[in-house]
């Protein structure tokens, strides 16, 4: 399909679709919408999963489809792509701020931790409640595939960290 019309309203429209597990983030904030093509009432949306086993992808696909149908698009195709692989570096700044306000520490830029070096920890993961960077990792795996579990050494609050990927 070739894009014959202005698609920027479509990008804005898809901001209404949120991640079902982190509802404060839109799929645009997350960076999982990779491409949109449109022609008359036909739309193709290309999305990429955050993690291969992320159960939210099926719900997200369905929600994109519903939203486009409600807005008059009739021929909708949603395609998944794996390469280039999703990275937390694609998360928007607005998205990171929303995450922090929601109580989840946003990902640090992808750095030395995304390798196999043992006992490495992300530097200076700030507590989303009190802002202290005196925090420690409790577990590299958290409540969803994309998060790790941390605790603040100052205010003692446990919190989720959207881990770099």
């Amino acid at each position: 399909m070739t894009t014959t019309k202005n698609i920027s309203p479509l990008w804005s429209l898809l901001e209404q679709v949120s991640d079902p597990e982190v509802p404060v983030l839109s799929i645009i904030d997350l960076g999982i919408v990779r491409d949109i093509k449109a022609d008359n009432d036909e739309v193709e949306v290309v999305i990429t999963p955050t993690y291969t086993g992320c159960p939210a992808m099926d719900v997200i696909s369905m929600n994109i489809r519903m939203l486009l149908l409600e807005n008059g698009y009739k021929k909708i195709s949603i395609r998944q792509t794996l390469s280039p692989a999703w990275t937390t570096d694609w998360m928007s700044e607005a998205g990171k701020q929303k995450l922090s306000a929601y109580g989840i520490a946003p990902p640090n830029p992808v750095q030395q931790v995304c390798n196999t070096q043992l006992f490495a920890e992300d530097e200076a993961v700030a507590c989303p409640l009190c802002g202290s960077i005196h925090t420690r990792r409790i577990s590299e795996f958290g409540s969803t595939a994309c998060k790790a579990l941390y605790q603040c050494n100052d205010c003692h609050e446990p919190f989720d960290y959207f881990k770099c990927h």
Partner: protein
Amino acid sequence: MNQTLINYVLHLADNTLILSQRNSEWCGHGPVLEQDIAITNISLDLIGQARSLYQYAATLQGGNVTEDTLAYLRDERAFKNCLLTELPNGDWGQTILRQFFFSTYQHLLYEKLLNSKDETLAAIAEKSLKEVTYHVRWSSEWVIRLGDGTEESHQRIAKALKELWSYTGEFFIPADYETATANEGTGVEIAALQQPWLNKIQDVLQEATLPMPEAKTYMHTGGKTGIHTENLGYILAEMQHLQRSYPGVEW
């Protein structure tokens, strides 16, 4: 239809599905809550990889084949997973060690598979490698914690090492479809990964104060060509029973 490539993709998929199924048995039974969550997260990553691979195998096969028919309606002899992945969980030490052996192998494998001439396999490897990096780190750290931990934890993981070691050689003995796909440039020359794997294992075992076993010893084989231990039958009985009893049932 390229049956060799299909077999290769199924082999990669079966490894991840069966180990995922095994790890998921820990759900609600982990030694502490955080590690219960960790092992089941790893299960979820592995099943995600299995889905990508089965979806691709289904596309290659065509017809009525889907990711679900491949997972739920094949018999034991059609599964091509390495024997290590189907072994019982044992205690925490045995589960950790199995994950460490497997993730280290998978990391080396996916690094090479990035260069596959098959674009879909390369993309799956690129995506999965990020997840496996976390698995390697987590399982290595736990091997060290247990080996260099208490007398009890050391003794248990040392016992696991004796029990599991003879199932690790199979990774590096290529099945026909591995040799053929490696020659075509779609697969990976698996024997060449053995030395880097041994080096990594040795580093971690040394840090864990565990003895490095002899690499040239008797190794169990057969899983890659469908000759399994009795364990796989029990896994499939549990995993497939719903689809076998109520064909086509949906959630």
